[in-house]
């Protein structure tokens, strides 16, 4: 089972750079919901930008919001900025669509970072433009 920790926390750089972790869908597949959330939030607490190749399910997103809220602390952690593409008009979100295996909306690239370091500049159905700053 993959470790539910940051991708490379044993070798955190001391430089002023911003670490970006791109996490494959394959790595996430075998993880339980709380393992995914812990991995994401541990990375964000370290000031990293976490990019998920296949995003989270709606239920996982709901729990991510809940756990994030429990970890917010004045002057230490203000929460997360999270971005995925908005739902396209052409995507089929009906029950039939989901039964037929159309789950595109659940596998969207997702960018997550510390709220005080990442700012969304533009977002539409096909583009997310974000500004990432150091602390």
């Amino acid at each position, binding site marked *: 089972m993959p470790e539910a920790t940051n991708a490379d926390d044993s070798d955190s750089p001391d430089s002023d750079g911003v670490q970006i972790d791109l996490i494959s869908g394959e790595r996430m597949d075998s993880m339980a919901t709380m393992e995914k959330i812990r991995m994401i939030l541990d990375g964000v607490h370290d000031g990293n930008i976490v990019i998920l190749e296949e995003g989270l*399910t*709606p*239920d996982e*997103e*709901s*729990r991510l*919001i*809940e756990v*994030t*809220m*429990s970890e*917010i602390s*004045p002057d230490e952690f*203000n*929460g*997360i*900025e*999270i*971005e*995925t593409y*908005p*739902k396209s*008009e052409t995507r089929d*979100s009906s*029950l039939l669509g989901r039964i037929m295996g159309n789950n595109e*909306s659940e596998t969207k690239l997702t960018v997550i970072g510390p*709220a*005080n370091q990442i700012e*969304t500049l533009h*977002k*539409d159905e096909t583009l997310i433009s974000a500004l990432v700053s150091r602390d």
Partner: protein
Amino acid sequence: MGLFTELKDSISRVTDRLFSEQEPKRIGIYGPPNAGKTTLANRIARDWTGDAIGTESHVPHETRRARRKENVEIERDGKTVTIDIVDTPGVTTKVDYEEFTDEMEEDDAIRRSREATEGVAEAMHWLREDVDGVVYVLDSAEDPITQVNTMLIGIIESRDLPVLIFANKIDLDESSIKRIEDAFPQHKTIPLSAKEGDNMDEVYDSIAEYFG
């Protein structure tokens, strides 16, 4: 009509109420902070029960606990629809107490931010466990394509909950109903001003139709 017949009819009416009426559906009022959720909840509660639910404010996160108003009876076309209204705290992924320091002392701002985070977690829990339908309230003067809106609508859809989108604050010059309809074309959007009471007939018709 004889006494026996009257008694039989009376017992029949009571048993009908006891065994055939459904429990009122719990309708959660969701949306981002400052969309006007509590103003809407108060408008509905005042119109049909005479009481308010909570305090309204221009400062975000005024509602920091979910509040339920039970047995709100809405009459439409001679029929009565009974619902419980659950006014929930505005959902967000971040809370910074410094947002409130212009309005209050630092200690109060920190307390408000702590309560706000608890309130958001509570709102998410209600959404997963305890609501039967959702009224999603948006400020029609703001861009609706935000991550919180995208995620919450996705969460609501994944639970197959009936949802109505309320484009609130149509009394503002910057209001755009089309922007909301274009953002969430898969759901019915109803324009209104909860503050001014504009278009409330359509609001109540839709609530009765969707949640009755």
